[in-house]
């Protein structure tokens, strides 16, 4: 039997073959740990990639663009105010209603979605829906005025659209309609060409919510700096694990010391995690290589390392990989170097180990 075949990975996802493995710092990836509350973390960002940007760069960009943006926004708002008096913004609102279903379809493949993470597409949708729900409650209070106007003016279309939305969200009908009236988040992923200045709420008189302003900020940010979306400088890359086969039943993880150094983690901790996850045992040989019992392929180890990084290396708050793992009173704490947050991490437990191999061997040991 050819031993190089992908024997043990029926569940593995295909990954693009790259020279360096880019461990995305976003736990939203398809292989993300299901225990991390991924969408909740993202609530405050307008589109998925806001998280990926380090706080530093965002700040820098804010500084750079702050002046220009402010001027732009002022001018626009003044203009929109006049428009608002003229046409009361109703036409705009109606237009939005028709567009909404299209937007929902388009979200998956929208060109403007900055998918730094390969699988961020689906996650964006979820967070978007979530945001909608959240915002609808908040906005229900703000929008009573606008909502009543809506009720008077828009009849049939609203009902149809509202019902469509209800099928998806299971929200209250009224809330949905109010939301439909001027929902900036439905267009959160709209092409960047139409953003910044065409928000449906610009013409209205109510207070802006934080979410809307944040959306607007990111739109103008990305519109003026397209390079931000494609920048790979902030991504956390480490060398791919090099796995060789020794004999028939052992795998050798040659560059584990390099990887541990790159992650600033003790090799013992990483090894412990690897063995617990793979449900196997092994040892470190004379030249610092790890000998793992069982046959493993590079991408399998890569997958496990990815999960290790998500759980024990990246900061859950700011996604920065500059963290320190310290042990205090038998509990591991992870302190972030860049944002200063500190949290305890789960202890590594190998859990139940089934009896594999001959029982007679175990009995004597």
């Amino acid at each position, binding site marked *: 039997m050819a031993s190089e075949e992908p024997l*043990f990975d029926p569940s593995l996802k295909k990954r693009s073959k790259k020279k360096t493995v880019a461990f995305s710092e976003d736990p939203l990836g398809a292989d993300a740990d299901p225990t991390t509350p991924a969408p909740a973390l993202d609530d405050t960002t307008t589109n998925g990639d806001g998280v990926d940007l380090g706080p530093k760069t965002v700040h820098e960009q804010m500084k750079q663009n702050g002046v220009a943006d402010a001027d732009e926004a002022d001018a626009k708002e003044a203009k929109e105010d006049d428009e608002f008096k003229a046409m009361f913004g109703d036409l705009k609102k109606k237009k939005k209603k028709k567009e909404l279903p299209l937007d929902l379809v388009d979200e998956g493949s929208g060109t403007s979605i900055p998918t730094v993470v390969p699988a961020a597409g689906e996650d964006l949708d979820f967070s978007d829906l979530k945001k909608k729900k959240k915002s609808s409650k908040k906005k229900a209070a703000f929008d009573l005025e606008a909502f009543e106007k809506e009720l008077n003016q828009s009849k049939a279309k609203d009902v149809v659209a509202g019902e469509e939305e209800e099928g998806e969200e299971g929200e209250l009908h009224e809330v949905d309609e109010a939301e439909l009236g001027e929902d900036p988040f439905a267009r959160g992923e709209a092409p960047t060409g139409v953003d910044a200045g065409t928000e449906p709420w610009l013409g209205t008189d109510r207070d802006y919510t934080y979410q809307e302003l944040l959306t607007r900020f990111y739109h103008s940010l990305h519109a003026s700096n397209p390079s931000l979306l494609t920048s790979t400088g902030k991504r956390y890359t480490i060398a791919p694990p090099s796995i060789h086969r020794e004999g028939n039943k052992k795998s050798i993880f040659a560059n584990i010391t390099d990887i541990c150094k790159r992650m600033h983690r003790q090799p013992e901790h990483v090894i412990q995690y690897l063995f617990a996850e793979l449900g*196997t045992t092994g040892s470190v040989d004379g030249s610092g290589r790890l000998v793992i019992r069982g046959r493993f392929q590079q991408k399998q180890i890569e997958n496990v390392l990815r999960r290790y990084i998500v759980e024990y290396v990246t900061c859950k708050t700011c996604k920065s990989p500059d963290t320190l793992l310290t042990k205090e009173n038998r509990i591991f704490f992870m302190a972030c170097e860049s944002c200063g947050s500190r949290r305890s991490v*789960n*202890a590594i437990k190998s859990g139940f180990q089934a009896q*594999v191999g001959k029982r007679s061997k175990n009995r004597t040991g």
Partner: protein
Amino acid sequence: MSVQNLNTFDPFADEADPLGANQDVGAQQNYIHIRIQQRNGRKTLTTLQGLPREYDAKKLLKAFKKEFACNGTLVDDEEMGQVIQLQGDQRTKISNFLTEEGIPRNTIKLHGF
């Protein structure tokens, strides 16, 4: 005069127990763990550990065996309680099955490669 050798010595005296009497500090007790183990050749074993009490492990095992067309057994472990063991790599199938039966996905932890 006290004899030093007769003093009782608590080796953990200076190690303050941060957990105290609280049993839930680990916060891992609620997860359902699905693991895989390699056997000889290309054979594998899937284990399901930490099933909540309200589910009947025996019936679940029967359903698994029928659904995934594999054999399996129920193992009683002293620490881990009842563990379902299935032949072959059934991890994704188990997780899909459990989520379809209404177990929230974030309580299921999929281990292994």
